[in-house]
Structures are given as C-alpha cells and as structure tokens.
C-alpha cells in the first residue's frame, strides 16, 4: 500500500508552454515538500476533472490573473503501484463506440459512446478528451488490447485511443484511405484501404507501418480464420482475396457477385459474403445482389442466396457471437424496395433468404448496423439529412425496439466494448 497523491489538471484556456513549465515547477516543489505523487492526469475540461474525481479537493491556483486560471484537483488515494491500468472507468458493463463518419472533406467526424448500464450516450468523446478533432470521415473502429483503433478514412490515418478515458495514444500516419483493421498478433495487423492497391501491415506494439501486401485493388472488410485472412474487394470488383498471415502473401482469390461489401464467419468456420450487385447505371452493369457462403476448407462457394429484386441493395452483414445468426440491412435504390426494406435476421442453416424483415425500415433510412456480441441487441442508425445528429435505434434480438438516442453526423460503424470477455 502506498499513500500518495493524484493530480488532475484541467486548463481553462489553451495550454501554453509557460503554464506547463510553471506547473512542472509547482509539482517539483510539492515533491520537495515530501509528497508522493502517483499520477498526473490532464483533462481538457474542468468539468471532466470534477466528474471523474468526484470527491476531489479542489485547489484553485491563479497565475496571471488576466490570462491563465489553473485548476488543480488533489485527490488523496491509496493504490498499488503495480496496477497496470489505473485509468478512469466511465462504464461498468461496457458499451458501444459509434463512429460518426461526418461529412466528406469537412473534418467533422466524431466518436460517441453508449453506456450499457446507464443507457446514456456521450458524444464528441474524442474531441472532448483531447481537444482536437478525429479527422475526416471515420469508417470503423476496432478494439485490441485495451486500445481503440479508429480508421480515419479521408485523413489517411489511424487514431489510437485508450478505450477507458478516450485519450489519444498515438496516430498511425501515412496511410491512404484506411477502412478496416484486422489484428493478427500483438505485433501485426492488416489495414484495408479503399484507394490503394495494397493492404497495409502495421505493428500495433509500436503503432508504425511495417509493410504492404499488394492485391491490385482497393480492399474493404476482412475476417481472420486460422492462419488466413479473407478480404473483400468491394468498389467495382467482385473478389474475395485469401492472404496467408504467416508470410503476408496473397495465396488465392475467389469470384463472387459484384461488389462484396461485408464479410463474417459462422460457427462452422464458413465465411459469408454479402454483395450488393452494383448500382443502376454503373458502367459494368447492375446484377441481382447475392449472399454467398464460402467453404474455407475448399475455398469454394458452398451456397448462394440471390435476392428477389434488382432494386434491393443489401449491406452491413453482421453475425452474433454464437456464429449462428446473420443480420443485414436490405435497402434500396431511392427507396424502391418499399416495405421490403429493413433489418433482416437469418439462420446460418436456413435454406432461403427470409422474406420478411425483422425490423421494417418504415419511413426511416437505415444506414449502419451493429449486433452486440453479449446479448445480440441490434443497433441500427439513420443519418436523417446527413448534416445533423443522426439517430441510433436499439432493438433486442427479436426486433423489439428498446430505445433510441442521437449521436452525431452520419453514425455508421459500431464497435462494442465488452467487459466480460476478451472481445477482439
């Protein structure tokens, strides 16, 4: 047991070098007086500082009366020095991060967090914790080893955050247009990319890029199964690539229906690929959308489920934790699918596509889909006019609406943070 002092600092105005220097000197003085300082944390907002350390004793230091007001919260604490992560915990039972894409070339992407216990949503959590924006168009987020990897597509970078306090940890720069990340090991992860012909290899331990795998086309969603990585190539392509993660080599590819946009693996270790078939009037022609099941042992198509109408355009294939139930959004070009649009649920053993949606779209416009791995709750978003806070609707696995909340501009990707297991 060590007695010590935690210092929480929040700056009222922008931090300047002088203030920081002064702060360092002050802390040194405190140390000289024999106080043991365990941890120094910086907050962007004074509010956060108080909220987190509720029983804090607050000292207010005034440096230059006109320019800088400094707040320091003292908190007497006792903790074990060997504790690895003493960071602030906002959520007790986990929650879900929502990637708000923001508007292309506007740099207004943001991150929201919905707490499973309190059922509250916090918006702009990245900006609030770090005092700078995420960047331009957030495509997806994936959690690995306590860190969140956020693909900032049109800023050509990956933002790495601490998933407990949302603090920025590192930026992986010099990418082209990162879309998704799949972790191979603690030293290796693959990043797919829309506008470059290769998959980038990064090292999550150092957060640097270490190589590329050339595939010749833009890549989209990925799924890892044993030593192999299966990658869809969506934009104007019809391929699923197979990559050996031991030697980072492209070993095989299979042709599926045009524009495979999402991929999952089921309990039988098969992979499911959802192809939207392209759009009306595109130069390579539009075909009927197909859900394809691929046997990974033979790397051959096992089953194909063509959709009923050329007007439908399914996206966002997801699977529950047990790997036995698929979910997807079936939408349409200009709403022409009518009452067929909505979120569909399908067993991996089914012999045909479901005919009725689990959650009919009604007059909404469904955009992003997420399925909670803990309880199969369904999260589906509507971006409204795309220049205001979008809505996220939460349903249980049977399609009963539980609640809804507003996040930020164009909520798209969902990333679940589960406390009970080592969800990757």
């Amino acid at each position, binding site marked *: 047991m060590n007695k010590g002092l935690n210092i929480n600092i929040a700056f009222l105005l922008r931090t300047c070098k002088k203030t920081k220097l002064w702060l360092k000197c002050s802390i040194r003085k405190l140390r000289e007086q024999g106080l043991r300082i365990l941890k120094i944390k910086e907050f962007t907002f004074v509010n956060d500082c108080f909220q987190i350390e509720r029983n804090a004793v607050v000292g207010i230091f005034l440096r230059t009366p006109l320019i800088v007001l400094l707040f320091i919260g003292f908190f007497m604490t006792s903790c074990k020095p060997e504790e690895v992560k003493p960071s602030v915990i906002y959520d007790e039972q986990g929650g879900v991060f929502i990637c708000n894409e923001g508007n292309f*070339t*506007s*740099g*207004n992407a*943001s991150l929201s967090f919905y707490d499973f216990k309190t059922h509250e949503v916090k*918006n*702009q959590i990245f900006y609030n914790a*770090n*005092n*700078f*924006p*995420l*960047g331009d168009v957030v495509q997806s987020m994936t959690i690995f080893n306590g860190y969140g990897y956020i693909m900032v597509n049109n*800023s*050509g*970078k990956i933002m790495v955050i601490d998933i407990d306090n949302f603090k*920025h940890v590192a*930026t992986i*720069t010099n*990418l*082209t*247009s990162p879309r998704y990340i799949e972790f191979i090991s603690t030293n290796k992860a693959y990043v797919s990319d*829309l*506008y*470059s012909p*290769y998959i980038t290899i990064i090292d999550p331990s150092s957060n640097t890029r270490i190589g*590329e795998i*050339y595939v010749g086309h833009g890549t989209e969603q990925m799924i890892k199964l044993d030593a192999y990585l299966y990658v869809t190539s969506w*934009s*104007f392509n019809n391929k699923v690539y197979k990559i050996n993660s031991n030697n980072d080599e492209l070993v095989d590819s299979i042709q599926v229906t045009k524009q495979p*946009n999402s991929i999952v693996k089921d309990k039988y270790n098969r992979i499911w690929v959802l192809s939207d078939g392209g*759009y009306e*009037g*595109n*130069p*390579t022609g539009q075909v009927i959308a197909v859900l394809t099941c691929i046997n990974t042992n033979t790397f051959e198509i096992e089953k194909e489920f063509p959709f009923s109408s050329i007007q439908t*355009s399914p*996206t966002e294939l997801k699977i529950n934790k047990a790997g036995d139930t698929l979910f997807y*959004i079936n*939408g*349409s*070009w*200009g709403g022409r699918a009518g009452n067929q*649009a909505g979120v569909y649920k399908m067993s991996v053993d089914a012999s045909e596509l479901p005919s009725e949606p689990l959650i009919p779209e*009604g007059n*909404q*416009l*469904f*955009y992003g889909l997420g399925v909670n791995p803990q309880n199969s709750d369904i999260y589906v978003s*509507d*971006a*409204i*006019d*795309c*220049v*205001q*806070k979008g*809505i996220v609707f939460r349903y249980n696995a049977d399609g009963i609406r539980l609640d809804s909340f*507003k996040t930020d*501009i164009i909520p798209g990707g969902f990333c679940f943070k589960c406390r009970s297991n080592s969800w990757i």
Partner: protein
Amino acid sequence: MIKLKSAYCLCLILLSTIVYGQGMTDSTFILNQVEIKAKRNINERGLNITKIDSLVIKKSANSSLSELLSKHSPVFIKSYGQGSLATASFRGTAASHTQVEWNGININNPMLGQVDFSLIPVYFIDEVLLFHGGSSMQKSSGALGGSVIVNSEPEWTKGFNADLIQTVGSFGTYQSYLKLKTSNNKILLDLRLFSEQSKNDFQFYNNANGLFNYENQQNSNYVKNGALLNTYYRLGENNLISVNIWGQMANRNLPPIMSYEGTGRDEYQKDSELRISGKWKLYKNKFKSELNSGFSKTNLDYFLANNTPLGMFISYDSKSNTQSLFNKYSFEYKPWAKTIIAGMVNFNYHKVHIFENREQTGYDKTRSETGMKLSVHREFFERLTVYGLVYSEFVDNSFAPLMPSVGLEFDVLKNQNLYLKSNFTRNYHQPTLNDLYWLPGGNVDLRPERGYTGDVALDYSFRKDASLTINASIGGYMSRINDWIIWRPGEYRFWQAENIKEVFARGIEATLSGRVVVSEFDFEFFTNYTFTKTTNKEETLPGDNSVGKQLIYIPLNKANVMFSTGYKGFKFSYNLALIGERFTTSSNEITRHVLPAYSLHDIYLGKEMFVFGKALEVQFRINNLFDLDYQAILWRAMPGRNYKIFVKISI
C-alpha cells in the same frame, strides 16, 4: 488634388457620353447610360437593384469578383481561401440559386448550377449589378436568391490608352494586368490580359491533428491566365454592335484539410473557359431592341491521386466539358411617355460531357431552354409606377408553370429622392444536370425548386453639388422555397439527390454610403448590413431536428464597413468585414459544430503621382491586419496577416 482631378475627369467622361448620346439618339438610350441621375428609368422602378460603384470596381481591379462582392455587397461569399473556389449565397439561398450573367449570357455551369466567383477577375468587368430576389426575373428565371450581372461597358474616349498593373504579395503571389484600348468615333477595341500566380504556402496554426504546431499550407499553389477582347462598332446613329471574347484558364492545386496526415496527395482542378457574346443594339424613337448571341465552352478537370509506397494510385480523374449556345432577342417599346412594354425571347442549348476515368462513369446530356418574357411598366400620377411581368419557360420540351412578378414604386416625398419599392414573384429553378444525371445518385425524377418571394425596400439619396452625397437603403424580403434539392446517402452508401427541404428565407438588407469633400480632403464611406434567416420549414424526414433552424454556412449577420480618404494624391482605405457565426449542422448544434464569428480588417495606403507625364499609382496593402486565426469553412486553413504592393501605370 490629383485624385479629385481624376474623379472629375471620370465625371466628365460620363457626362460627355450622356451629352453625346443626347445628340444622336432619343431619351431611352440616354437613361440607360446615365450614371448620375435624379430619377430611375421607368423600367427599373419597383425593382431591387444594387449597382456597385464604378470607382469601387476600378479600385478593386486586382481582385476577383468574389472578393469584391464579399466586401461591397450583401451577397455572402463562401470561400475556400485565396484563389480557391468561392460560391455565392444571395439572400440565404444555395449557390445554384444565384444566376450570373456576363454580357447577356448566363455563365452558371450547367452541370453544377453554380459559379466560381474566384475565377472572374474584376479587371475584366466594368459594371456589376445585383438583382435581388424576384427582381432577377427581369433578366432570367431560376435566380431564387438573385442575379449578379457583370458587363463590359465601352468608354468612348478617343485615341489610345493603356494601363499596366503589377502586384507582389505575400506567399509568392504575383499579379499582372495589362489593358490596351484604342478608339475613334466608330470603333473601339479594348484588350485586357491578366496573369496571376501564387505559391500560397502560408503558415497556420494546426490544432486539428494533435500536434499543435505551426505548419505551412501544402499543395495550394495556383496559376490563372486570361484575356478579354471587347470590340464595339457604331453603325450609323442608332446601332451598336459589340463582340466580347473572354478566354481564361486556371490551374489550381487543392490543399488537404487540416487533419490530413496521409501519404500525400496530388489533387488539382483545372478550369478553362471560352466565352463569346455578340450583341446588336438598335435604338429608335420609342423603340429599343437587342439581339444577343453567345457561346460558351468550359472544361473542368478534377484529379486526385494518392502517393503510395507502391507508386501513384489514382482515386479520381474526371474530365468534363460543357458547351452552351445562347440566343436572345429583347425589346423595349414606349408607346406612351409613361409606359414601357418590354419583351424577351430566348433559346439556350447546353451540351455536357463528363467522364470519370477510374470508375469509368459519366454522362453525356443536353438541355434546351426556351423562355419568353413580357412585362409592362406604367407610371401613374407622376409618383407611382407599377409593373407586371410574366415569364414562361420550356425546358427540354416540358412546360414549366408560368412565373409572374408584380411590383410597384412610390415616390414618397415628391422629388425628394425617397422611394418605396415592393414586388412579389413566383420563380422556378430547374435541377442542375448533375442533380439529374450524376452517376451514382442523380435522380431524373427531381422536380424544379419552386420559389415565392416578396420584397419591400426604401431608397433614399441626398446630393448637395459635388461635396456631399449620401445614399441609404433598407429593405426586407421573405421567400418560400419548396422542393429544395439536397444530396444525402442512401443504402448504397453513395449520395443521391432528392427534393427534401421546404425553406423559408427572410432578411433585411441595409446600406449606407456617401462621400464628403472638405477642401482638399475627400472622404468616402460605405457600410452594409444583412440579416439573413433561412430556415427549414417542415419536417420531411423522421427524427429531423432541423425545423426552424438556420441552413448551414449561412451567417445570420454580415456587415461591411469601408472608409477611405484622399488628400493631395495620398489615399488611405480601411475595410472591415464582419461575418457572423455559421452553423455546420442543419440542426444547429452548438458543441463542436459552429464556426465562430470573425472580423477581418484590411488597410491600404496609396499615392497617385505623375512621372514623366504618366500617371503612376503605388499602394501598400495589409490584409488581415490583426493576424486573425479563423476558419471560413470547417478545418480549412486561412492565411494570417499578409501584404501586397501594387503599382499601376497609366498612359
């Protein structure tokens, strides 16, 4: 005194034109040419027209029309930075709701519907008129916000004139302008050339990537070159034939936004335009007619490639070209002294080709527009003028509903220069070709946007010989725009165009300007203020929180203050632009989604002198005097304080 002299000279030139005009034609012609006059021409009454002072135009010779309008007009210019795309929002409407006419031909891009005002050099313009709201129906349909009319005007001074302007500015900016003009009684030739280039690598504080560093703007250099040839020919006493040819190219690299930290990009836009407008004006007793034909050809290439470790990977490579033909016949007939009947028939044809190389998408489409207009202006009891106008249009053989406009003007204090004006208009704006045919997302089922607008304005001017002039005006308007087109993503994750918003725009426009001459001091001032409230009227989408909220990027408040003084050839000018806060979300979220208000201060100090009998003008300018760090558009870096030296030689 030199300054005064030149001002008097200008007046003399104008007066001489008037006198000359009187000698050769009837009164209709004169009124159209008069700059300073007590009462407006009957067919301009009841209309809300702003004319930008010709001295201001001359003073802004080295700026683009976007800068001129943002400093001297109620139009809000949304600019991406120096030399970059600048679009207009007139009375709180979208960029495509401002129609721009150059020497009688429309220069809105038929694909995009908008005009890039940064590509119109003020040096190539002699006259700028703004037709607010429904008053724009005098010129064309479709201008739900208003029209910007830019014209070349002949200056019939005999002999040869030339002037040369050279500027050197911060961030490696160089501008050169040359004008050569020669004329006799019959023929006038006016050639103008310009060339502008800038490295534009200004330093800014980057608070968007977590590094909190000063950085230099990347990939933002540009080159612009242009030539304009105005030819005028007087045929007999009543005919004027003119041909205006304008060719221009602009190569602009496009900088990434502040949060970009990728592999590096090669992104550029290349614009080239050729525009020709020919006019034959005929002035007869009681009758004036004008035949106007024009041609315009524009190319717009956009290219985006990412530098990757494995070489350059092109993500976007589109080339587009548009060709348009314009034909218009208009007349004015004055059957009685207090009545003017005006009519217009036009036929325009647009051909658009756009192709994107990587995805191999694009479209080839045409559009034909036939329009007809008839209006009657009539003065009653010397103090009241009433007009009625009807406009009808066929677009691609489908008949758009009739667009009527009515208005009146009342001389409130008999001959004391106080006028009350009001008009009401129904207008339609056709979807742009991109809205209809863009792949993916264009929607051929789009309906035209429908606008209803009403205006009331008070105009006052006071003039005491040459020493004191004051002009003041205040006006209010209300517009309703239904079926406003927006783009939003569908399930395919690409954007598509839909008739979604129902918009209610209302506002106040006020200007006050004047000139005071006290002995050898010459003071001029100009202020304008606009209040623009443009809100979404109806909830057309479930969960929509934008009802009653201000549209994005339209400031509620905008004001300009200009003050200049001259003394013995020295000139000092101060310019203040105040832009209110702008929302970037349709629901007007406050947290992280508001661009704060900002004020920009520009000053210049100049001296006019004669060296070896040639007029020489030297100016030193400071823009953004207080080195303000601001954003006009989300996360687009803007330059801090910057300088410019301006030298002009006239022969």
